[in-house]
Every structure is written in C-alpha cells, then in structure tokens.
C-alpha cells in the first residue's frame, strides 16, 4: 500500500508538488491523468527517492512505513518499482549484466543469498519470453540504441523480474505499437495480486483498456483535483482537462 500525504516538493527552488494526497491500497490499480507539466513524473521521482528533489512537507508511506528518509536503492529493496517515462542508456553494460546486478543488489539488501547464474538465467528467460524480448536484446548494452517501444517493454520486463510490492508506471504506453501495448498490458495484469498495488500514469484511455484501473485521479499543478472510477478516464478523453485545471487555479 502506498500513502502519499499532503506532499510538498520542489526542485531548484521551484515548487512542483503542492500538497498532493493519494492512497493506493494493496491490490488496487490507480491511474493518474493530468496535463503536461502538472508534476506527474515529479511525483514518481519524489516517491522513488531522487535526491535532487527537496521534500518540503508531508509524508510518503510504503506498506505503513515512511520511506522519505531512505535512499532510492533502499526503497527499491523494500519493493518499490518505477518504470521510467524516459529509460536511461547505460553504455557498455549489457542488459543481462544490469538485470543480474539489480536483482542481486536488492537481495543483498534484504539479506537474501545471491541468485546463482542458472537460477537467474531461468528467471530472465521466462520474463523475456513473456514480454517478447529476444535474447539478442539482452546481450546488448542496456537501452543503447533500443527503440522507444523496446525500452518500455524492457522496463516491464524488469518489473516482472523484480516482483515489486508497489509499481509506478510513468507513461509506459507512449511509443508502444498496438501489439506491444497488449503485451505490456498482459505483463502488468499477470502481476496484479491482492498484495501488490499499481500507480499508472498515462495520457490515454487506450492503456486503460488493457489495464483496467480501480480508481482514476486527475492531477493538476501538483495536486490531485478529482478522483473517480474508470468512467472518469472516459470523460477526460471526451472533454479534456479544462474544467479541472480551471478549478485548481
């Protein structure tokens, strides 16, 4: 469960989050929609622990525990996962090496033994098959020269592999072709479980056709200004944000 309570945050002196409150329960899939620049990615960074953002008020609880004092890697080991809007390239580090490093870094923090190479390979192969990621891609440096869609697919592959207790997906649908959208949707749906929550940031209904949310929230100027059920997304698709943005201003 993720509880965001009256969160205020700024970067380089600019206030981006202005008292944002949102709770996503275990087993729930929540969607956030909102205009460009309303601070959706910022929210995901602050929750995940990016150190150049300054939290000036409020709290974030993961499974009942405040995580604001923890480093990004410690939050990850506690089961928090963020699929990036713009995944980063790491030249020279093969995708396989990166996956192994991250899975074992998390296990180490949790005091679990490292995965043996055969066990790891088995897990990766299974996840890759599920996400339609070819072996050849796993041998290439992480995200280097990957197409936009390939990067997004790989984000979900990492999520499947790391089995987080809470995942935030930031515009994972952008750049995906129709088939990839379905594969990503299936990937997420296969992880849906009563002890796992999701926060899905998106601009379009088409992703929510595949990952049907339990709740939908509208973010504007660093705050949640409207919450509702799946029908809210349809309404937004029809009418845009105008009413809510005006209300927030």
């Amino acid at each position: 469960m993720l509880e965001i309570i009256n969160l205020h945050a700024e970067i380089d002196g600019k206030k981006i989050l202005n008292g944002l409150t949102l709770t996503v329960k275990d087993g729930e899939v929540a969607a956030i929609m909102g205009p460009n620049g309303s601070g959706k990615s910022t929210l995901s960074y602050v929750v995940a622990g990016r150190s150049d953002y300054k939290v000036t008020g409020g709290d974030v609880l993961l499974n009942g525990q405040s995580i604001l004092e923890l480093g990004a890697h410690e939050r990850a080991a506690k089961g928090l996962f963020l699929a990036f809007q713009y995944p980063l390239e790491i030249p020279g580090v093969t995708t396989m090496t990166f996956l192994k490093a991250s899975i074992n870094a998390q296990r180490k923090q949790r005091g679990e033994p490292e995965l043996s190479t055969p066990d790891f390979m088995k897990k990766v192969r299974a996840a890759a098959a599920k996400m339609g990621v070819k072996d050849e891609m796993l041998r290439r440096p992480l995200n280097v020269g990957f197409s936009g869609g390939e990067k997004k697919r790989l984000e979900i592959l990492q999520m499947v592999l790391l089995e987080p207790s809470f995942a935030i997906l930031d515009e994972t649908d952008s750049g995906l072709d129709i088939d990839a959208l379905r594969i990503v949707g299936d990937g997420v749906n296969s992880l849906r479980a009563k002890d796992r929550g999701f926060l899905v940031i998106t601009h379009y209904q088409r992703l929510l056709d595949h990952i049907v949310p339990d709740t939908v929230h509208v973010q504007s100027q660093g705050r949640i200004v409207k919450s509702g059920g799946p029908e809210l997304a349809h309404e937004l698709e029809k009418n845009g944000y105008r009413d809510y943005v005006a209300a927030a201003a």
Partner: protein
Amino acid sequence: MAAVQETVDKVKSIDVDAYKYGFVTDIESDKAEKGLNEDTVRFISAKKGEPEWLTEWRLDAYRRWLTMREPTWARVDYPKIDYQDLYYYSAPKSMSGPMSLDEVDPELLRTYEKLGIPLREREILAGVQGASTRVAVDAVFDSVSVATTFKAELAKAGVIFCPISEAVQSHPELVRKYMGTVVPVTDNYFATLNSAVYSDGSFVYIPPGVRCPMELSTYFRINEQNTGQFERTLIIADKGSYVSYLEGCTAPKRDENQLHAAVVELIALDDAEIKYSTVQNWYPGDSEGKGGIYNFVTKRGDCRGARSKISWTQVETGSAITWKYPSCILRGDESRGEFYSIAISNGRQQVDSGTKMLHLGRNTSSRIISKGISAGRSNNTYRGQVFAHRKATGARNFTNCDSLLIGNKCGAHTIPYIESRNANAIFEHEATTSKISDDQLFYCMQRGLSAEEATALIVNGFVRDVLQQLPMEFAVEAQKLISVSLEGSVG
C-alpha cells in the same frame, strides 16, 4: 643542480686506490650507502658479479644522466626529488617499514579486506618488517612443485624466463645484443637513471616458431623479492613466436621506496607477437596523497620484424603520480601496434599516461583505445603521439580516447600529437568526455544498486572494450579492483 655538481666533484676527487679499497670492504655489506655516484654504480654491478661490459654500460649511463635534467613537461606536480637522499641498492628494511599491521594506513587495510587478500600477504604488501622473509619461506614451501613443473614445461619449449641478473650470467650474448636497443641508455632522464642502477627484473626469450605454452607472470618468477624500485625487463620474441606476459598485482602494494623508475623493452622479430598486460596498483598515498609512489616508467616495444605485433594492455589505478607511455616502434613492414588502457585516478592522484605509435615501415597499423576515469580531486591526462615516417606508405592508425568524470573537482585532459610525413597515411582520432549523469545514477539506484555500486557498474561498462583485452582471470580481478578504486568517489 647543486647536488649533481657536488656529485661530479666528489667523483672526480676520489683517489683511485682509496676507492678500490673501500670498494672491497663495502661489498661485504648488503646495502650501498645513501646517494648516487660512480661507486654506487660499481657496487651494484659488483654485487651482481656482472661482466666488465655491463659495468661500463651502467657507468656510461650514469655519466650521461649527470648531464640530463628531470623532465617537467608532464601534467604532474610533486616536490623536487633529492637523488642523493635515496638508497640505490637494497634499501634498509629495518629502519623504515611499519612494525606490524597496526601501524599501517587503515584505509589501505580496508582495501585489502575488500579485495579478499589473505592476512599473510597483506603484511608483505604493506611492507611490514620481516614479513617478506616469513612469507617467502612459506611461498617456496607451497609453490616449489608448481614452480618446478612450470620451469620444466618452459624448458621443454626452449623458453628462457628468469631474472635478468641471471640471464646476464647464463645468456650474456642475448642480453648484450638486445638490452638498450629499444630504450637507449640516453633515452630519457628516468630510463638513463634506471640503466645506471637497475636492480633486477625479468628476462624472456622465446625461440623461433615457439608459442609460449603458458602466460608468463611475474608471480611465478623465482627470486622475485627485492627487484626494487629500478626494475628492468627485457622480452625477445624470435621469428614466428608468441608470448603473453602479465605484470603486476591488483593489491595496492606499499613500498618504502617512493620513486619507481622501471624500464621495459620488448622486441618482436618477423611474424612474432608479444602481448604485455599490466595491472598497476601501487599505494596512492593517504587522502592527502602523502606517502604515495611516484611511478616514472619507460615501456617500449620494437616491432623489428615484418608482420610482427606488439600489444600493450594496462590497468592503472595506483601510485600518487603516474608517468607512463608504453609505445610501439613499427619498424617492420606490415607490423602492428596496439595500446589498450584504463587509467583511473581518485583522491589526489595524478596520471599522465598514453602511448606513442611510430610508423616507420610500410603498411603498418596501430590501434589506441584509452579510457581515462577521473574522480575525487585527481587529474588524468592522456598524452599520445602518432607519427608516420616519410617511408611509411599505407600506415594506418585508429585512436579512441574516452574520458569519464565523476564529480566536479577532478580534471581530464587529452593531448594528442599527430604527425604524418607520408601523404598516404590514414590516421583517425575520436575523443569523448562524459560525466556519469545523475539520471543514470538514479536509474540504477531505483533498481536497487547503491550509488557506489551504480558508479562501479557504469564505469565497468565504460572500460569494457579494454577489459576484454585482458586474460580472463586478470580481467575478473581488474573489474573488482576498479570498483574498489572508486569507492568514496560519490556521495
């Protein structure tokens, strides 16, 4: 210059008879007096029972050295060295080494722990008094059979691999024919000094057509103790032969001698190939850079024969100051030179390193891949020269220099000199400078890696092309070493 002038005067003033007398008594002692003069040189030579020609060779070098000046062009900065305040033969162990590990820089001990070095070896590496004799006994005990099998196998192939002092006795014709032909006695200040006072080092000769049956490593050289600060190595690959040589050790080695001026000469005859790999991790000094080693090395390979090949691979992480340019003279037609380098500087380390590729023969080719990583308050300079002689038709070079900066208090510099006197030569040069971005770090950390683990992973990716050139076990060790070297560079 004052000290040098004084030496000249002193040398002149020595009465020959008095000198001879003093000489004879002195040889009973195990160390030369502090300071450098012709006596010191004769003493070293006599200690090793060297033939007349070699004594003269050393003396020539010494006299030449007196006329030379210490170079100042490198981008390194250190207090003036007083050459009369050094010991040039068998440094007095009883006076300067720490008594036990308790007296050793705790930072250094932590590094040993991280590298998983056995306790016994830590003592040797840290220069604890008496440790080397204790361990040498154990090492001989443990490795006698290994070393013997080793020697037998090499002998069967006709390979000569021994201390250079031994080679002077057993194969004087080879040593005389090749020593000083790649790095002439007059080459540069430090090489000339080395020629005068070199202590010991390795000698390798691979006979025609022989592929050396194993990687040669200094580790297996008997009598390796005490090669000291002026090491000298000579490797000759005769026609159509092949050898791979490994030098160094991943553990940070402390030494009471701050100045190290080694010379390495490689000679490849027709169709021969030499692959020389180094992992250098001398003590870099404490956080202020105090007590670190000055590493002023001259390494050069001569592709003397047609179609010969010399390849240098180095991982440089240690020393307070590194001044090192492993080079290739591409004399033989169609010969090839390669230089693969990873140079890491952290803390207050200063690195000025690179290579020279001198294309003299036709259709010669060379390749330079240099990866410099600077962190902390360090400075890291790549200095390289690619030259094509008028006759070097068809010469080709490809150079790729990448620098990676960690933090914003360090410096990276790339200084390439390119000169072609042949219109036909093709030289390509690529250079990049990048920083580990906060975005990259955050991305890795979001997946569970700590800032340090993330940095190490990114750096390992950055140097991958070069790591792949190292022999397997060496590469694994080097990778671990890179992570340890960069600790404390982020945060």
